[in-house]
């Protein structure tokens, strides 16, 4: 009997070692270890053995069983490896083929830039305010220290609805509207994104364009705060090496007023075609809120100061993306829009 077991052990192990596939191996397993398998058959004959022989043969049988199991496990591992290897070999695909197309959409570059500007100022604690696009002469001009027949009205060629109503020429009326609502509460810190309109249509002017206005009013807002805020903004928007330059200018609703230039984003200030060889690019107008504007909005200009600034989103967008033609922004060619 022992001999029989050893033969089974030897045959089974040999057969298993030479099995070529997991299926074949399984058949071999059934042949020896299955319910009707050879080993099982032999072990059924154990009952006929004497009491002395039974434990010894039992031990041999266990050894044989363990030996076959071991071989089975070893061969299974090898065959699994082989099978996976084979499968991987057969399943290669051309990864350079294009992927499944996704319908491509996106935000308009003007929105992207406007939101980027808003996000920066949200981080500095500004809230976003809004106002009508069809505005009264009062909010668009009068309240901003631009009475009728003021020569500075020529700076903003206006679309009129009637003699008291117009398309707002800037987002600045929202300064007054917001302050009127809030006065005498402090601080006022708002950002006003929006569309504005001027009667101008040529290669560098669109009759409708976008501005972002900013206003900060509090007890101790200074011109130096304006400089610091816009300096930070310029670096955030155009990169950490961006320098700013503040030039005295004139807006009826701010004083002192400043035009703000940044070092040219193309040449870094060395001078190139984009900056007309000056090294500087004008990006926004700003200043300390004119006392008259604070007063008409309900604040005491002796106790409260503020700064305001306004920028054209088109200009900043063009600089950021290297767009050299204003008109493509309003042309809405999908081949353009899909670049953003």
């Amino acid at each position: 009997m022992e001999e029989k077991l050893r033969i089974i052990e030897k045959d089974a192990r040999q057969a298993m070692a030479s099995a070529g596939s997991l299926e074949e191996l399984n058949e071999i397993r059934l042949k020896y270890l299955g319910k009707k398998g050879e080993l099982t058959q032999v072990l059924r004959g154990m009952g006929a053995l004497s009491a002395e022989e039974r434990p010894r043969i039992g031990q041999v049988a266990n050894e044989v069983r363990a030996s076959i199991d071991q071989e089975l496990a070893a061969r299974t591992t090898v065959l699994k490896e082989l099978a996976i290897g084979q499968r991987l070999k057969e399943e290669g695909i051309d990864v350079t083929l294009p992927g499944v197309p996704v319908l491509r959409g996106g935000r308009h570059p003007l929105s992207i830039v406007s939101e980027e500007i808003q996000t920066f100022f949200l981080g500095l604690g500004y809230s976003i305010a809004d106002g009508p696009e069809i505005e009264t002469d009062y909010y668009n001009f009068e309240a901003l220290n631009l009475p009728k027949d003021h020569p500075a009205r020529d700076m903003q060629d206006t679309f009129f609805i009637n003699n008291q109503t117009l398309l707002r020429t800037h987002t600045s009326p929202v300064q007054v509207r917001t302050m009127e609502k809030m006065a005498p509460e402090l601080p006022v810190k708002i950002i006003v994104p929006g569309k504005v309109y001027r009667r101008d249509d040529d290669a560098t002017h669109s009759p409708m364009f976008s501005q972002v206005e900013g206003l900060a009013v509090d007890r101790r807002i200074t011109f130096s705060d304006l400089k610091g805020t816009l300096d930070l903004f310029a670096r955030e928007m155009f990169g950490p090496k961006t320098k700013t330059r503040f030039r005295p200018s004139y807006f009826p609703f701010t004083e002192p007023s400043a035009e703000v230039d940044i070092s040219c984003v193309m040449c870094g200030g060395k001078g190139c075609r984009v900056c007309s060889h000056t090294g500087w690019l004008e990006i926004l107008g700003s200043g300390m809120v004119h006392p008259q504007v604070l007063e008409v909005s309900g604040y005491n200009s002796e106790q409260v100061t503020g700064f305001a600034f306004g920028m054209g989103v088109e200009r900043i967008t063009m600089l950021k993306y290297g767009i050299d033609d204003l008109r493509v922004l309003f042309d809405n060619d999908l081949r353009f829009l899909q670049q953003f």
Partner: protein
Amino acid sequence: MYISYNWLKDFVELDIPAQELADRLTLAGIAVESVTALGEGIEKVVTGQIETISPHPNADKLVITRVNTGEEKLQIVTAATNVSEGDVVPVALVGARLAGGFVIKRAKLRGVESLGMMCSGQELGIDSKTMPADQAHGIMILPPGTPLGRDAKEVLGLNDYILELDLTPNRGDCLSIIGVAREVAALTGKPFHLSEPTFPELEEKIDGQVQVDIEAPDLCRRYIARLIKNVRIGRSPLWMQSRLRSAGMRPISNIVDVTNYIMLEMGQPLHAFDYDQLVDHHIIVRRAGEKETMVSLDNVTRELNPDMIAITDPSGPVAVAGVMGGLTSEVTDHTTAILLESAYFNPVSIRRASKTLGLRSEASIRFEKGIDIGGCLRAVNRAAQLIYEMGAGEVVSGTVDNYISPVTEKTVLFRPARATHVLGMEVTRSKAAEILSNLQFKTQEAGEDLLVTVPSHRVDVGREEDLIEEVARLYGYHQVPATLPYGPTTHGVKTREQSFRSLIADTLAATGFNEVVTYSFTNPGVFDLMNLPGDSPLRYTIKIENPLSEKHSVMRTLLLPGLLEVLANNFSRRVQNGAIFELGRIFMPIEAGTCEERTVLAAAAMGRAEGSWNTPARELDFYFLKGVLENLFRVLGTAAASFLPESANPSFHPGRTALIEAGGRRLGLAGELHPKVLEKYELPERVVAFEIDLDALFYVSGQPRVYRPLPKFPGMERDLAVVVKKETPAADVLEVIRNTGGELLSTVDLFDIYWGEQVPEGFQSMAFKLKYQAGDRTLTDAEVSELTAAIAAKLSERFGAGLRS
């Protein structure tokens, strides 16, 4: 405004180069757009006199001249026709360089040697618009007596730099050489000098010879007249012509040139009348009458109105003050006596008059910004001096000076503490006083503060902030430190509505839509394009009074036409597939002049989503659009929306359009555009679109999200296919299934629609996947089968639906 560097030197010492001066002015708020070197690159051009002109033996159109350049006599062949023997002209010698880099070489013209060239103004870089009319297109002829052999650049004032200023509207004072010179002096610390004009006067007095009455003192606060006799009209001297040219003006005649010269130098426009043409030698300044007329210098009959200031004599208007002179009193070659006017006119009146008449002159530009009322007398005296010096006339003694309530000087308190507070930078009283006095302000200490007297030429300064700005800009903005506002931290947040808009835009962008920006004004013709009936309320628009064109003349009441135009433009450029959206305002009139601005979300799509080697292309059809909206509503947390058939909107396909409702509100429309609309826009056969009111959408969105525990027990699925009449809406079938399935039916998906073989004509098969789920137990096969059968029975009862296996 063009400023000559050399002319500035008459009033202030300049020891910095023109470019540096330009930079410093710019940083002080007087923006210099450009600096141009006149005569740059021009070399070896001298003055020469034509001694003889003789015919060319081989050419009819050429002549041979002999030109004396002082040192030598040159033979020059020329085709010029406007020269005569004795004329002094600029001569380019052999080796000379002219404007544009043109080099003069020794040449033979039709066999005759030519040793140089006579020059036109353009060849010397002079704009033909600033040349006397008779020399605009020929050789430049210099006044007789011009010394020979001199560098023509020097003689013509071309060794100069021109600063082009881009002035802000408040700085009318810098529309003059002396105004800029004052700025330069303040910036460089060099003294500004302005001497009083001196000249001999005739013994005869002006008194009794000129009468001036101001009948509209609110419009004219000062009017000075001076009388010049023995006038000899001719050309002005070359130096004056050159200076006028440097400012872009064309020399006309000595008297006119003097008035222009004074305007450029001092900012005071002058007007010269032919004294003998003024009836009774009597000037009356008054409001023009309604519909009063005057023939202006350019021989056009102008209609005046009472907003305008008329300079009149007893017979009627002789000039529209500050805007345009009249023809009858114009200075002509026969004029022998002139009345010079130097006046201050109301800026608003001048502005209105120049707008109404459509005439913007160098004079009106200055008057409307407010000129220096204290400088009127000096200006007219300076003119008299120049006229005398150039021998153009003799000055009658005295002036008539009507000065209504001479202005008391403005004084403003300047508090250094306030300046420090506003600027965020220490401003000391002494530094401020220094800066202000360099700018010709008078200062006087008043405790800690300064009492500042504003000079009359600074009409823009009237309050403390103006002075703070003066101090800051002269100090230099670069000196101001950069700080951040100090104070309690504020919370910067978007309102819910602002975040809502961003979320919509981002979601649509992520589902394949490109955001567009279209104009808020539109063409009234779009309502026809949109197939809207004549009485559609959408045709009631806000109109722009002064549109750029009819195309942009009314405010939009719909967003869709703009989007369709965008698709049409793309389509015409062979971009045939695409989906776009816009979040923008529409403008609905309420009553005269007022309107409601509503924000609308609109989208449109045409063509298809391109497929690929393993993906079929997908039509961008109604169901695509609906899927996008369903996804959007899910992201926005919108109340359950229903899409109800809508066949009444004339812009949309009556069988492929849905009205969208949610939470009991009407949100808008989604559907395929009407074929008539597509045809008018020249769009492809099918375009889908939606337009949704943002307020309504906002109102029904943002439903709170509440967590539902995940099922603990396994669910069960059944497929159910029913055959119903083709016109049965899926929504109705689904509703019956849901109602019958009750709580245990967790989801139902319509996964197939089929008609054709095995389905009777006029019917369709709808296949649903039903998922059952109980929260508290495992469902049994039996109860699920029973429920499904109940659903089938109900469908059969309701729609006569048959089961299909």
